[in-house]
């Protein structure tokens, strides 16, 4: 992508208020994830049983949970579990997938066949079920959830990368690079990867939303983060038992999930309009 196009992309984002709002929310969420202490009003772990299930008010902005912990502060501290882990899932999944796709597309032949059949098998599994089975096999917990989601997410990128690589290897500049004896890995890294970047960025941004939802879903099912971690999905799940008396307990963490996911979706949608005009 040339500097000119990059500048145009930036201008298009800033001229679109919806995309701008999305970016603002993502920046804020990142801040919450990195320095939660700046925003939290209470300690997210300290129990305060006399004040359990208090409604939202001046002392507790979004009320308290069944242990008297401040829901707002727990949401603030929970941002790292949702956003940073989602970034990790998407980053690692994309890295793995790109590597597989590059090799499959560039080398061709039987490695291509084997790698692509492997992606087919993973894609044939219904994602939620596969995640449940893998987490059950390697044990519950946030780390295992992240590993599972990486294992599930790579095939999508592998497919995109392979398709792009197959097109790229036919281009004259790649043939020319080959002819003058540039090593294969350098051709892949310097010539093929940069040209597939825009399609991958769009995919990755949209998948950040998916990753946040999947992490929350596994947390909700009790397979991901474990109590007392203030993970948003887990908070909705524990709040579910009290929702008739304390609606704020499950509702606000769920809203946090939705708002951040929405922000990533809006950004991804806008980026697609800009970077990938054929595929709108």
């Amino acid at each position, binding site marked *: 992508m040339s500097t000119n196009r990059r500048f145009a992309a930036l201008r298009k984002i800033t001229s679109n208020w919806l995309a701008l709002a999305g970016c603002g929310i993502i920046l804020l969420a990142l801040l919450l994830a990195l320095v939660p202490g700046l925003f939290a009003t209470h300690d997210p772990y300290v129990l305060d049983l006399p004040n359990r299930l208090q409604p939202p008010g001046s002392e507790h902005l979004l009320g308290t949970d069944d242990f008297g912990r401040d829901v707002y502060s727990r949401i603030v501290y929970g941002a790292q579990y949702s956003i940073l882990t989602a970034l990790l899932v998407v980053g690692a999944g994309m890295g793995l997938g790109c590597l597989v796709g590059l090799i499959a597309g560039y080398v061709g032949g039987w490695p291509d066949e084997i790698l692509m059949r492997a992606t087919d098998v993973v894609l044939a599994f219904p994602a939620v079920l596969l995640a449940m089975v893998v987490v059950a096999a390697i044990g519950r917990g946030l780390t295992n959830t992240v590993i599972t989601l990486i294992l599930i997410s790579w095939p999508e990128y592998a497919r995109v990368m392979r398709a792009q690589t197959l097109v790229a290897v036919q281009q004259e500049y790649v043939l020319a690079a080959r002819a003058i004896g540039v090593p294969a890995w350098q051709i892949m890294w310097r010539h093929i990867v940069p040209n597939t970047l825009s399609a991958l960025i769009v995919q990755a941004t949209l998948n950040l939303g998916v990753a946040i939802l999947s992490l929350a879903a596994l947390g909700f099912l009790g397979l991901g983060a474990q109590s007392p971690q203030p993970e948003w999905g887990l908070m909705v799940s524990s709040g579910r038992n009290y929702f008739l008396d304390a609606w704020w307990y499950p509702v606000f963490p769920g809203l946090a999930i939705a708002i951040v996911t*929405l922000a990533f*979706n809006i950004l991804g949608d806008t980026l697609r309009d800009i970077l990938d005009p054929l595929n709108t």
Partner: protein
Amino acid sequence: MSLSQFVVRRLFLLLFMLLAVTALTFFLSRVIPGDPAQTMAGMRASREQVENMRVRLGLDKPLPEQFALYLGDLLRGDLGTSITNNRPVLENLQKFFPATIELALFAFLIATLLGIPLGVLAAVHRNGWIDHLSRIGALAGIAFPSFWLGIVFILVFFYHLGWLPAGRRVDVSMMVSYTPITGLILVDSLLTRNWALFQNGLSHIILPALTLAVAPMARFTRFTRAVMLEELRKPYVLTAHGKGLSPSVVTRRHVLRNALIPTVTIMGLAIGYMLSGSVLVETIFSWPGVGQYAYDAVFNLDYPSIVGVTMLTTICFLLTNLIVDILYAYLDPRIRY
């Protein structure tokens, strides 16, 4: 390649995929921590009893041999015995699957009937208020977690407004009058003209189905809009307008028909998604389907059930994909395999 050759080839591929999926699930389920023999024999069983159970379950044999035995059983239609309730897994699946199908089909109906017209309207009134509204609605629809939507729906429509029940397929008292034919309560009650049961079943299914339908509906809307816009740009639309056809006829008879062809693909994918993605919705609404069965199985380390459910959902997933591909070829005569 003719269509029949294509179907045969795809069926072979399906068999291969099934084998791979079975192998993967089987080996994954074997590394699950915990001891199934101990669970089956009971917590107070002696060491000898546990060993006997291990031999009976074939767990003392090496893994590849266990897998060969499992495949043999599978071909005879024996999926093993559930560790949770001691019943054959096949019987459990037969019992729970109709509920999941009914929920998924109903959700699919909602998503299609609302999502596609909304997409068409958004495309026809491009950049109008309906387009913007549908865009925000669709983006939000994909962003809200289904488990959270379910809880909010229960809170609003059951608890505060008291309009709809939340949980189970019908009231327990209604089950007495139910005679299963297909296993789908709504269909069966229509067939037997049991209106009270139909009404009761309908009121129970609305909230879970709506929860399950929100995300696919959002996707249908966005996708239909995109395809419609692409079709509207084509020269034949100009010709149709030039012939003096009214705009609504052009939209309905020409543009929509062509736009629906690619939409079929994502509709098929959505059915597969709903059949497998109902785990969350089923646990929230205590819907006695395969999703809840899978959830219980995972928590009870009930590996025969886990493998069984995974097999079943994967077959559905692969079959819907196959049907979509065939339907696609049928709808669009230009596509030849």
